[in-house]
Structures are given as C-alpha cells and as structure tokens.
C-alpha cells in the first residue's frame, strides 16, 4: 500500500503557490487510482497553518509541518533536513513535490539520503495495472519517455505549469508539527536576498499568457541595408509592456549581447529558450524574426497556441510548428500591433 506525501513550501505571505496546487492535483489523482493508498501533506515555511487550511478539503488525511525562520529561506541543508523529517514522520513511499527551484535543489539529495530515487521535470503521472509510471522529456525536450521504478521511496518533481491546479477547498486542517534539530553545519549558508531587474525592466513573466520570442533577425540588416537595433529595442519593449507578455529569445540573439555588441541590452541568458535555455509554459506564443529547425524550436515545445512573423514562408521555426505564419516584416507589424494595443 502506497503512502503518497505531497511536499510543498509556503510563499512569503504564507500561501501556497499554484505549482504546489498542481503537485497536489497529481498526487490526488494518483491516490484516487491506487486502491488502499493514503494521501498526506507536508508543508515547510515560517508558518504553515494558513496554507494547510487553504487545502483542508483535499483528500489528504494528515498534515505535517516544519516551521521556523530556519525554514523560510530556500537553503539546501535546512530544506533537505525538513523534507527528510517530514518523510520519516509520514512514513511515505511516494513523494510528490512541485519542481520549483527550491524543491529541485533538494529532492534528489533527499532521495539519496532516504535510499530512494528521484525523478524530476515530470509532466505526467499515471497508474496502469496498479503500477505507477511517470512521463518526462529527454535530450532537452526532444523526446518523451514513460518510466516506472521498483525502488521506494520514489520522489517525483512535477514541472510547474504541466498540470491543472487542484481545486481543493479551504477548511481547518490539523497540522502535526515535526521538530527538526538543525546542526550548525546546516547553517553555513545564509540566503541574503534576491537580485532582480527593476519591476519595469523585468522581461521574464512566468505567469503571462503570452510568450514573445525574438530571434536574431531583429538585429540584421533590413530592407534599407541598415540595422535598426534601437528601433527594435523600442518595439520589443513596447510590445512587452502593452501585451504584458514574457520575453524569450533565441540563443544566437542572446549570445550577441554576451559578446559585448550593442545589441538588445535587456536580453540575458535568463531569456534564452531552447536547447540550452528554458522551455517555458504559456498559453500563447508569438515568435518574430526567428529561424532554424529542430533543435532550436524546442524553446516553444510547451506553448499551446503559436503564431509567427517571418519574412521566410518556408521558415523551419514556424512551418509545421506554428498554427499561423505571417509572411511579413516584423518591424512593420509590431509597430502597428503596439499602436493598436496602446489605443485599446
């Protein structure tokens, strides 16, 4: 009989992030498919009661918590110790957690500590003939595999955005607090803060509906034989602001910036999508001036509705990959789009 533990951490305001509710959804579905299984929840944070209450109507039968200032910061040593302690208190065999940066940092190490195995970036969990299997992508999202394991505990990190969020209702949950004695060696690291662009300069917005993908074509010579980089910068930033979109970029465009050229200075490797970048999940994606076949196109593998603007009607980035390809000059189209969005 499997005991399924959902591990989650609270946000700064004590709430649960959407990614935690997505993991909860996967775990609840697993619980429903496994006869005789038990579902429990483990929460880590400064305070966890409010978070537990927010999902109290879930099928979970027990709630465990590790609290205190040591567990507010996303630090390997303390997070691993907390997860290990909750796991032992819950006597779990399966652990499901959102693959946030915080959990992705510790899950494999915790699995090693517990003598189990971890699978990360999981995009699907299923039960067939009583056997649990998980799906995940290999070779940078170029092929998808389904696998199963005999080892327990099995720690499963669910990729944020890959599952619906659970609609667990609120109520009052009885949280059993788990004491964790942190040795001094677990306090050698201190999280001192966050570094991020100013709010109006932040171009990466994971919660945005739309991903705007910019390719190297923005920096190439245009019909008049000249480059128009300042104009491209103004148009792209204007679009991001008006459409409240997130910005992704091809590797070639980001690399130009990294080589010290005066090219779209707001781009960094954090914007890079594709083979050696991110594969973000958004409802819609609009690519502009992008080119290339696989593997470059894996950057928008997880974008549902895709449209592209390119001067090349045979563009491998768009043909067979996008729903609509506009054969047009992106400078002209985005100028008009920005005008329309500003007027709306």
């Amino acid at each position, binding site marked *: 009989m499997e005991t399924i533990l959902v591990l989650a951490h609270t946000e700064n305001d004590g709430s649960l992030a959407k990614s935690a509710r997505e993991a909860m959804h996967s775990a609840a579905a697993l619980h429903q498919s496994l006869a005789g299984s038990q579902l429990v929840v483990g929460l880590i944070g400064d305070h966890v009661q409010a978070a537990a209450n927010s999902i109290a109507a879930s099928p979970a039968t027990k709630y465990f918590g590790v609290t205190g200032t040591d567990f507010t910061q996303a630090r390997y040593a303390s997070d691993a110790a907390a997860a290990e302690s909750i796991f032992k208190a819950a006597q779990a065999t399966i652990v499901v957690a959102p693959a946030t940066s915080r959990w992705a940092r510790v899950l494999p190490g915790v699995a090693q500590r517990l003598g189990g195995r971890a699978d990360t970036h999981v995009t699907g969990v299923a039960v067939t003939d009583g056997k649990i299997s998980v799906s995940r992508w290999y*070779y940078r999202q170029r092929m998808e595999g389904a696998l199963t394991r005999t080892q327990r505990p099995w720690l499963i990190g669910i990729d944020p955005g890959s599952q619906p969020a659970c609609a667990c209702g609120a109520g009052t949950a009885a949280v059993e607090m788990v004491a964790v004695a942190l040795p001094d060696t677990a306090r050698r690291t201190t999280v001192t803060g966050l570094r991020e662009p100013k709010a109006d300069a932040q171009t990466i917005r994971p919660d945005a509906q739309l991903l705007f993908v910019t390719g190297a074509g923005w920096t190439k010579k245009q019909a008049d034989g000249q480059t128009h980089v300042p104009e491209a910068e103004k148009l792209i930033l204007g679009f991001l602001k008006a459409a409240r979109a997130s910005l992704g970029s091809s590797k070639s465009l980001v690399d130009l910036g990294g080589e010290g050229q005066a090219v779209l200075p707001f781009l960094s490797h954090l914007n890079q999508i594709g083979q050696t970048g991110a594969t973000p999940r958004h409802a819609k994606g609009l690519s502009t001036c992008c080119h290339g076949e696989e593997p470059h196109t894996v950057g928008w593998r997880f974008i549902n509705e895709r449209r592209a603007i390119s001067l090349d009607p045979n563009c491998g980035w768009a043909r067979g990959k996008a729903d609509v390809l506009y054969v047009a000059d992106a400078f002209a189209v985005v100028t008009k789009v920005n005008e329309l969005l500003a007027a709306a």
Partner: protein
Amino acid sequence: MTTAYQIVVCGSIVPDPLQTLEPVAAPTGPALKNEMMLPAVLDPWAGHALFEAANLAKNNPGSKVWLVALGPKAKLQQVMMTVAQKVPFELVALDGSASGFTDATETATALAEAIAAIPGLDKSKLLVFGGWESASRGAGATMQIVGERLGIVDQFQGVDQLTVNADGSLEILERIEGGKHQVSRCAGAPALLGWATGNLPEPKNNPQVGMVNMRTVMPALQKAKPTKLAGEGLSFAGVALPKQLRETKIVKDQSPDAIAQEIVAWIKK
C-alpha cells in the same frame, strides 16, 4: 585572503545539439539511433562549469582543477581533443554510458567514488562543480546526489555567479523563478555548485594548454575504470519523438495593418 581550492568538475559528453536524434529500443532499454556514430560535445552547462572552475583557479594561486567524466572512452577521447585546448585540468575518466536514459543515482555514485579516490583530496578546500542539468537526461539530479555521497550539504543549483569574498566566504547567485537570482553567502569550502550559464565566454583554443593537458588526458583515458550502469529497478514503457505536426496556415500578401489587427484580436481572445 586567497584559498588554494581543489575544484572537481563533473561533466560528460552529449550528442551535438544540432544532430537529429531518434530514440530506438535496445536490449538494455532506450537508446539513440546510431548513438556511437553521433558527433559529441562537452555537455554545455558542464562546459560552463569547467570554464568557471578554470577562472577561479587562475585567480586563486595554488588551486587545481580536475574534470571527472563518465562516458564511452572512445567518444571521451574525441571530445577531449578539443576541450583540452580550452583550460588546464586533470582528467579522471570513467568508461561507461553517457546516455540520457541511464539512472542519475547510478551515475552519481560512480562519479562520487571517483572523486573520493582522487589522491590528496582535502575536503576543506573542495569545490565540486558541474552543470545544473545535462543536455541528455536533463534531470538536474546527479550533482545533488554526488554532494550527498561526499557529505556536502552546502549545495547550489542554477548558479550564474560565484564571488570569493575577502574573508574567504562565497557569494553565490542562483537562478530562481521569474528571471530572478537568489543571493546566498556560504562560509566557504566544501560546497557544490551546479552551474547554469555563468558569465564567461568559451575560452579560445590554446594549443599549449592542449599539449600540457594531453600528457595526463591520454593516460587517464587508458586507465579509465569500466563502469556499468545497470538501471536497476528502472524500466521504460517507451520513448518517442513528439508526433505533433501542426497544420500551419501561411498568411501572405496581407498588409501590416491587417496582420496587426488579427494578432491583437488573437492576443485578447
């Protein structure tokens, strides 16, 4: 205060990202079609880790860099011909599969044992580097397990910057959600860092560095320990390429105004 670090970089080879990859069913599980024929490169994020390690060693006299690589010996040798010209390091080679379908725990166990066996390793000076994810399995799991096996609990993933402070402490920037970096201060070695892109460009080939490196690379390859990754307890139901091919509607000969109106309507839908 400068510290002479012992920097061990874990990194292996992956198929050249520009190659067409196709999964096939092999007797031992999934594999890539013509895997041994595919040109290979050093795993990109592991490469960044190696270049950062070399830079750190250069700025901290007395430091030394090892590259611990698990892969098919013949392919490792090919890739080392190029990598060895980039930065100075000593190779520790393990002869085994570099497939993305191997188990992270088994790979990590082999790497950790190889690191622990490095003569003269001083844990108080040890920094273990690697890519935060590979371009093959892409699990982001191997480094954490290596760290656990070596007893290192100061671990960082998605690292873009490491600064050694005057007091010997380490300031580390890790990628987190939303285009942000988390800033941490660690008391010092030992620590494990899974690197993302970092800040350094790929070094130019330097034949002199290559000649020095090759003196140790070839013997290391010759004595590479055969490493079997059995995939115990792990079975694949299947691996497939995505089948989805979209019916792309090509819109030609429309004015920018008309296209813009259509796009705005779609965005707002």
